């Protein structure tokens, strides 16, 4: 991303490396990721399972548990490096500035507390003076938009369906009106109808409240539907970052091309193409570009050298030797 955009960005991630300690070596789950998220933006991170996107999300919000650890890099939210904050200060940031909707909603709610109480204690941990009916108002407002019945919040999680739990978590994530919400796979465990509601709600938040959303998904179609910017990840590395429409019309990176071509198009009777091979071992990743063993356009240098991020169009970067300027 160009330096001219840096000042306007909400979140700067620079060269983030997150490894998992495994016996004597490390799994390099996230290996040098750099990107920016602007205010009022839906930023989608797309990739296969195991490419590191969830690890990246957890790292940003500082929820990593051993054996995961941050090897290097910085995460700047509103000019504060989240990785350098001590436990006391990070708690101030949590939920007020940045929140998360985790991947498996099934188990993310405390089974022995009513849903409302779990939302309330998230609020009172940060804003003690907010009166109860004020909280209730906010909850009701969002519940209406998400079409959640009122009994949802008086219930225990085990009484609710998966979709209702997912939406409750969404209310929880947005209750303090954070500037940035990370949403990890919001659509994989729910039916299409709930999917639609959630996506519409997210779009509304961005437009009306100015919330930025990092949307993590392996579903390219969802990205196409609501994201503004998308980042394609593979094996812990960034492949391509750019405007969604631009990327769909004209993908640069071979992996991005394969991803987009793998999605069937309505009305077009063509063969759905996939990629051969499997994602690489992240303890001993392939030399040079990590994608080269599966890349249909690989050239000699791909095996030898890691490519650098290059801006190929305004606000559009690619990490691939095919596009390096000579």
């Amino acid at each position: 991303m160009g330096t001219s955009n840096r000042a306007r960005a909400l979140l700067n991630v620079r060269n983030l490396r997150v490894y998992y300690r495994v016996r004597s070596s490390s799994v390099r789950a996230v290996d040098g990721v750099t990107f920016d998220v602007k205010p009022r933006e839906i930023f989608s991170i797309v990739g296969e399972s195991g490419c590191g996107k969830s690890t990246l999300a957890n790292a940003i919000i500082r929820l990593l548990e051993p054996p995961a650890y941050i090897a290097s890099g910085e995460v700047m939210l509103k000019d504060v490096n989240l990785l350098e904050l001590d436990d006391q200060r990070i708690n101030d940031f949590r939920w007020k500035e940045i929140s998360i909707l985790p991947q498996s909603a099934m188990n993310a709610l405390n089974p022995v507390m009513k849903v409302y109480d779990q939302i309330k204690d998230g609020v009172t941990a940060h804003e003690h003076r907010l009166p109860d009916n004020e909280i209730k108002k906010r909850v009701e407002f969002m519940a209406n938009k998400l079409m959640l019945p009122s009994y949802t919040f008086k219930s225990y999680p085990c009484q609710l369906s998966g979709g209702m739990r997912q939406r409750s978590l969404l209310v929880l994530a947005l209750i303090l009106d954070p500037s940035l919400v990370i949403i990890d796979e919001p659509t994989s465990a729910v039916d299409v109808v709930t999917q639609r509601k959630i996506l519409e709600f997210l779009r509304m938040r961005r437009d009306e409240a100015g919330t930025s959303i990092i949307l993590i998904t392996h579903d390219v179609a969802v990205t196409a539907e609501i994201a503004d910017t998308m980042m394609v990840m593979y094996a812990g590395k960034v492949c391509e970052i750019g405007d969604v429409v631009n990327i769909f019309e004209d993908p640069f990176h071979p992996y991005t091309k394969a991803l987009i071509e793998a999605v069937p198009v309505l009305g077009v009777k063509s063969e759905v193409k996939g990629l051969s091979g499997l994602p690489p071992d992240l303890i001993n990743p392939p030399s040079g570009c990590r994608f080269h063993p599966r890349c249909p356009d690989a050239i000699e240098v791909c095996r030898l050298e890691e490519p650098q991020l290059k801006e190929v169009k305004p606000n559009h970067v690619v990490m691939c030797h095919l596009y390096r300027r000579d």
Partner: protein
Amino acid sequence: MGLPYVIRRTMIYVLSLFGGVLINFVLPRLVPGNPLQAKLLELQRMGVRVAGQEFVDKYMKIFGLNEPLHIQFVNYITSLIQGNLGISITRFPTEVRELIAKHFPWTLGLLYVAHFTVFLVGVILGALVGWKSKSKLRKGVFMIFIILSQMQYYTVAMTLLYVFAFLIPVFPIGAAYTYGATYGNILQYAWDIMWHATLPALSLVLVGIGGWSLAARGLIVSVKGEDYLILAKAKGLSENRRFLFYALKNTLLPQITDLAITMGFVATGSILVEVIFGYPGMGYLLYRAVTALDYPLIQGISIMYVFGVTTAGFVVDLMYPLIDPRVRYE
């Protein structure tokens, strides 16, 4: 709480009670010969002057031993329901239920105090150790209690008795209160009782904590990895709140059912403790009954134990779904 659950627990309860009663009834009658006769023979051997056959016949009638078996069983059950547990042989003509009534409160007091203390201390200690496993102090205390639990009741009881009643006579050697003492007021009586009960209660508590804390630790450790705890951290909740409401609360409820199951275990452990301290509870009474082979008394006490333990378990089983939402809405 579904109806099938209630039916099932009730069935188990009733069958357990019935099984206990049946065993109580059948066993003594399996011994060849007439128990009354055997007792009289034994007394005779010890040199006691014993009356003749008509004496035996008369008491056979009193004990109802000359009826056919199934009639005896029905009689037995009816008398049980009426609360009649027979007459003690060794303390004839004192009724069994009278003896039990005299000794029961001591066991009850000891057991309840000990059991609940053990539960509270054990669970909290175990939870704390499981939550913050790095603290050396917590771990050390934890290990001490585990070791104490492996030493079992008799070792700890004897050691306490030896050290604190013999070597350094701080506490009394035994009994529940000082015999033949007069008290100025109820407070003095209460103090005397507590002074006597300290070592027995301490034996039960010190040994029992280990098992509970081990279980509690395991539960907290398994809960620590759950998604809702990670989200609680993401919400920025304080560590105390996460520990108490998100971790501990999720582990407490299942452990409450264990409370009833382990009541049986503590009850039997208290038998040993009472015997060692000469504490006049049901366990001590049972011990004396066994030594003297006072079958009606042995049976009466056994039935009381079975009834007490299974009923407590039954009550907890029925109450539990009311407090745990996960079970309630299954």
